C-alpha cells in the first residue's frame, strides 16, 4: 500500500472524489493542502491504496502525488 495526496481546484471536487474513493473501499480523508504543495488554502485528500486510483479522480483534480510523509512525487497534473 502507498500513500497519496490529491489536490483539487475546488472543495466540491475534493468532496466528490473522497466519496468515490471511500465507496471503492479506499481509506481516504479530507484535509487542508500541505503548505509544501501549495500556497492556496484549499482542500486535499490523503489516501492509501495499491495504486494512485487516477480513475476515481474528479475532473477538477489539480495534482496527484505519491508521498512518504516527507517527500512528494508528482504523478498527475491537470492545469
Amino acid at each position, binding site marked *: 500500500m502507498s500513500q497519496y495526496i490529491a489536490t483539487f481546484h*475546488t472543495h466540491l*471536487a475534493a468532496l466528490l472524489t473522497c466519496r468515490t474513493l471511500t465507496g471503492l473501499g479506499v481509506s481516504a480523508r479530507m484535509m487542508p493542502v500541505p503548505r509544501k504543495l501549495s*500556497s492556496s*488554502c*484549499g482542500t486535499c485528500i490523503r489516501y492509501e491504496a495499491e495504486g494512485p486510483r487516477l480513475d476515481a479522480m474528479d475532473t477538477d483534480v489539480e495534482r496527484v502525488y505519491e508521498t512518504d510523509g516527507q517527500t512528494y512525487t508528482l504523478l498527475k497534473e491537470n492545469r
Partner: protein
Amino acid sequence: MKKVNWLVVLTGALIGLAALVLTAQGNPANMGFCIACFLRDIAGAVGMHSAAKVQYVRPEIIGLVLGAFVMSVATKEFRAKAGSSPATRFVLGAFVMIGALAFLGCPLRMVIRLGGGDANALVGLAGFIIGIVIGVQFLKRGFSLKRAYEVGSAEGGVLPAVVTGLLILVLAVPALFKASTEGPGSMHAPMLLALVIAAVVGALAQKARMCMVGGIRDAVLFKDFKLLYGFVAIFLVVLAGNLITGSFRFGFTLQPIAHSSHLWNLLGMVLVGWGSVLLGGCPLRQLILAGEGNGDSAVTVFGMVVGAALAHNFGLAGNPDTLNEAKELVVGGISTAGKIAVILGFAVLAFISAVNLPKEEKAAVGAKAA
C-alpha cells in the same frame, strides 16, 4: 496533539507586534490593522464616499499586497488565475464589507480589539464563529464557486499594479486625494513606516497562508488547528503589549471606535464569517491572494471597496459609543438602513449559498423547503 506550524505562530506574533507599533505611531486605538477600515478609508480618499472622518490612502493596504506579491514572485508561487464566479465574489465582497463596518472592524481588527479588552469583540467573535459554521454547512453539501483557470500574468498582477499606481500618485500628487483632518482617518502612522511594516506582514502572511477565517473553518471542518494558532498568537501579543503599555481596558462601553449594540455586533460578524467562508478567506487573505496573482480575489477586494462606499453613502456603517454633553453614555450601533442592509446580506448569502450547491443538493434543499 496536532503539529504546530511555527511559521504561522511567528507570523501571528509579528502581526500582533506590528499592530502595536502602528498604533503607537499614530493609527487609531485597537486599529493597528483593519482591512475593512483601511479599504473604507481608501474608498473615501478617492472620493467614492464623502464621510469626512474616514478618508486616507492607507499605506498598510498597499504594503500588504506588494509584500505578498514580492514574496510570491521571489519564491515562484505567483500564479495568475481567475474565472471562479467573479461577479458573485464581487457581491460577496461588498456584503462582507457591510457586515464588517456594522461591527466596525474586519476579523483581524476583531482579534486586535479583543487584545485591547474590548468585550464587544467577544460578541463579534461569537457571531464570526456562527457565520463560519453556517458557511461550513454549505461547504459540506458541496457549495462551490467553480474553479479558476490559469490566465496571463498581467491579469494576475492587476491588484499589485493598482496599488503601485495608487502609491505613486499619493507620493507624487497627494492633493489628488481627500485626507481627513479629524476622526479615525486623520490618525495614522508615518506613511513609509506603515508601508514597510505592512509589506513585511504581507510577505509573511503569504508564506504562512494566514487567514482569520481559515483557522476556524479548518478547525470545524477538519479538526486541523494549525492556522488557528496564528489567530491566538496575534491575540496574545496584542494583549501583552496593551497590558505592558497600560492601554488594556476591559469592558463593553466606550471602547475605541466600537459600539456596544450587541445584536448588531453579532449579526455583522455572522455576515462576515459566512461570506468569508463562501469566498474562501477573510479580507486579509483576499489581499494576500490577490498579491500572489488571484484575479478573483482582486475582484473581491474591489467589491469590498464598493461595499465600503455604499456603507458610508447610505449610512449603513456602525457609529461608535459616545458621551453626550451631560457626560451620559450614548450607545452607538447601526441605523435602520444599516440593519436592513445586514438582513438583506443574509438573504443574498443564503441565495448564493443555495444556487451554488450541486444539483442533487439543490433538489434536497428544495424538497425540505416544500
